[in-house]
């Protein structure tokens, strides 16, 4: 009898604590420990901090990362939020195309995009610059990808999908009745949007803003390709230096500490902003969602969507396709320049491509499933205040995102190469590192979903005698199914293209495509690089589409077609 009435969520809580200890706390603790450790003797020291902040160059890189993160988050929001609104709430045409292009954008790894953008907007010979010169007769083109602005553009192109997806799922949950109320009271479309719709989606937008900021400062691949030739360093390229021969792991650990402080602050800020207002907008499946008629403006919106997706998807993919099938991409387009030799090489002469492809998707899928299970459980426990100190769990779940993949990998490496838990050398260390790295996305998404869910629905279950777990299974799960499918994709895709942690944790038997791609990027062989990139993109797209089909829900086009 007593067992029946015991709230079993306590066990889940204990389990979660254990998992988070392994995934987040232990690697971070090892990292913190290392930052105070003398490289040779292992004694306590503050020297690492002196070394990490003792040079103007090092501080400048930190500052550059902050500027980069903020600029990317702002631009990503400007790109993503209007598109989300247009797709979710208006009668803009060609929504399927726009959504497919955004999905494609999300699948393209940012380092592949960066290479493509070097070809598009390189100062001397970028195709866009050449086009400009040809059209205007000017001496040189206006674009220079090798600049902070260039790097911001490239990274924003590949992080705005966060803003889009977060905002769109929030918008999809707001019923038109609220907007109708505003219209009834005399507000126009714009005013309704600004005063009703936008504030309701604010938590989602803020969540995306933070995710974009953190993603931007944690990236390694795109800055290595663009910032170095542009002559500036960011935090991640600086960290790379600390791992050079002879490696200074301890200094790197010290160098990555302030970023944890920034995350904690941002997270606190987000909660402060949200805490002041009540945001429960979803009350079951009721409520009608009607499209706003834009009239002539719908073409303007479509133009904007196509402009952004051209920057992020259509133009870069055109360049990648050209190179993947070119004998020599420097020769440009032309029938005599087309070959299948590159694809043949990567698929047949290089057997590692096939193994790496399999690893990429198996690891990514497993990591996404684990992260989502964790994220949802934590978000639920935190919001329903089932246990004391739930807030601490939330902080722990959000923490990994600010740790650059390289540093996370080093933390994992330090923690799991020695007994009791030896993972290095196998697949699990990659899977768990990916899980940890993208846990914040899973959590932030689950958090936004649960936040919008009125607890009264579950209370109804409990009043009728059902337990907490039954409520989760029969009410929470089904209501959030769609959001969760999206969240899975949001973790799966970045896990398939994750580079910065993989590059330190893979071994001979566990290579993934991102590592292969990155190794190619400094080899001067863009044809092969593009072929591997193309394989990654094509398979991911196929899997994601198959996933939608199998799930029986057309995640892409639901409601937009009606």
């Amino acid at each position, binding site marked *: 009898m007593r067992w029946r009435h015991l709230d079993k969520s306590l066990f889940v809580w204990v389990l979660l604590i254990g998992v988070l200890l392994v995934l987040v706390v232990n690697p971070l603790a090892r990292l913190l420990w290392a930052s105070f450790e003398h490289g040779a003797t292992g004694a306590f020291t503050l020297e690492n901090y002196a070394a990490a902040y003792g040079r103007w160059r090092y501080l400048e890189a930190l500052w550059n990362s902050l500027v980069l993160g903020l600029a990317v988050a702002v631009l990503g929001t400007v790109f993503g939020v209007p598109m989300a609104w247009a797709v979710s709430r208006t009668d803009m045409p060609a929504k399927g195309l726009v959504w497919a292009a955004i999905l494609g954008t999300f699948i393209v790894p940012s380092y592949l995009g960066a290479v493509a953008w070097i070809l598009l907007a390189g100062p001397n010979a970028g195709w866009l610059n050449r086009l400009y010169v040809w059209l205007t007769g000017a001496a040189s083109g206006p674009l220079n990808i090798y600049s902070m602005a260039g790097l911001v553009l490239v990274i924003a192109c590949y992080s705005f999908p966060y803003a889009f997806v977060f905002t769109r799922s929030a918008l999809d949950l707001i019923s038109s009745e609220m907007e109708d109320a505003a219209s009834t009271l005399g507000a126009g479309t714009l005013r309704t949007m600004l005063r009703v719709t936008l504030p309701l989606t604010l938590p989602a937008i803020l969540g995306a803003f933070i995710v974009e900021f953190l993603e931007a400062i944690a990236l390694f691949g795109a800055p290595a390709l663009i910032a170095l030739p542009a*002559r500036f360093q960011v935090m991640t390229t600086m960290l790379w230096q600390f791992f050079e021969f002879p490696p200074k792991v301890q200094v790197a650990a010290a160098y990555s500490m302030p970023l944890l402080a920034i995350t904690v602050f941002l997270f606190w800020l987000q909660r402060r902003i949200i805490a002041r207002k009540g945001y429960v907008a979803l009350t079951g499946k009721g409520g009608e969602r009607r499209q706003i008629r834009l009239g002539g403006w719908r073409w303007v919106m479509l133009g904007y969507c196509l402009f952004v997706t051209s920057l992020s998807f259509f133009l870069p993919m055109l360049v990648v396709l050209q190179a993947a099938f070119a004998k020599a991409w420097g020769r440009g387009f032309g029938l005599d320049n087309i070959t299948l030799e590159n694809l043949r090489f990567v698929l047949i002469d290089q057997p590692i491509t096939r193994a790496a492809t399999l690893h990429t998707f198996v690891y990514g899928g497993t990591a996404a499933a684990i992260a989502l299970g964790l994220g949802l459980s934590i978000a639920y426990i935190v919001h329903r205040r089932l246990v004391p100190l739930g807030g601490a769990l939330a902080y722990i779940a959000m923490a990994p995102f600010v740790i650059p993949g390289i540093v996370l990998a080093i933390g994992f490496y330090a923690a799991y190469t020695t007994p009791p838990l030896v993972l290095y050398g196998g697949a699990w260390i990659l899977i768990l590192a990916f899980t940890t790295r993208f846990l914040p996305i899973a959590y932030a998404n689950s958090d936004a979903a649960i936040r919008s869910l009125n607890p009264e629905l579950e209370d109804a279950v409990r009043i009728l005698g059902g337990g907490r777990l039954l409520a989760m299974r029969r009410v929470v799960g089904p209501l959030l199914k769609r959001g969760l499918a999206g969240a899975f994709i949001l973790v799966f895709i970045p896990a398939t293209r994750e580079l910065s942690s993989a590059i330190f944790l893979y071994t001979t038997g566990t290579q993934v495509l991102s590592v292969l791609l990155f190794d190619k990027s400094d080899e001067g062989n863009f044809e092969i690089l593009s072929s591997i990139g193309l394989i990654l993109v094509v398979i991911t797209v196929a899997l994601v589409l198959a996933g939608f089909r199998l799930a029986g829900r057309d995640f892409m086009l639901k409601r937009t077609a009606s």
Partner: protein
Amino acid sequence: MPIARVLLPVAVTVLLAFGAHAHAFEGEPALYEAAKKEKALTWYTAHYNSETAAAVCNGFEKKYPGIKCNYIRTTAQVAYQRLAQDQKAGIAQASVISSTDVGHYGRMKQDGWLQPYRPKNLSELIDAFKSFNDPDGLYVATAAGLVLITYNTSVVSPADAPKNWTDLLDPKWKGKLSIGHPGFSGYVGTWVVQMRKSYGWDFFKKLELNKPRIGRSINDTVTMLNAKQSWVAAGPSATTLESKDKGNPVAVVYPTDGAILMVSPTGILKNAPAPNAAKLFEEYLLSKDCNEIMVKMRQDSVNRHVQPLPGAKSLAEVKTIRPTYDEVEKGIPEVKELFRDTFGI
């Protein structure tokens, strides 16, 4: 031109004496049998690009069926990092290591990561390269290449192309010059050490005025030239010529003041999971078969019987310069710092 003087007569004599038949070395069958039991070996290499590494591995598997060759190709620094991680964790992954930063070998030797092996095929090694071998037999030279001047032929005519290293300082190349980074690439590190030795650090202060594009690997310069992002570069012979073979508009200049000769060693790890396969592989790297594959990939041969393909000069015809091991080992960490101070990254 000491190498030219030494190499040419030797090569000719040997060719006449032995003809062109493949050489099996003494004890090959026994080593092969022992290696077959180990089934596979893993090779960390920074010596060439992936295509060449793949071709070398394929050739090894064909010559010695039953042994699988797994390569991991990275830049020198990354190869060392990976190995250091493995060693620290007590994990035996790699059996063979091929770095381009000779400083790494001094460190690995000191840390006791390598085991000695004197390949029977050492007699096949070009004499001039023998001085690059470790006296204790811990590593031997197995790859050679050049750092030289490269350019895009669609924008620079052969007459206008730089002839020597100081020509790169000409203001007409401002914003059109590409180089790699000594913090990533062993080739670039050695080049920077040599330029400092020849012209003093002033060379790089002047180079900075031309605002070069700085990539990571020396192979990055090939990408830059192909994209016409840069017109001229301090680049590698092998990848540039390979790219030219594919039809890209690039060409090389052998600088009159000397191309930098890169001779890169290979060593066998003490904790090698496949020690016999590793020894067999080291023999193979020196063999005629392997070097014939390498010259097809535009790598320079280290085997005295193998001549380069048309279009590339043999090392014997080129004026080459290079710093000593000691200068490289001490110099690369120094120039990395200087480089960062001068170029800001």
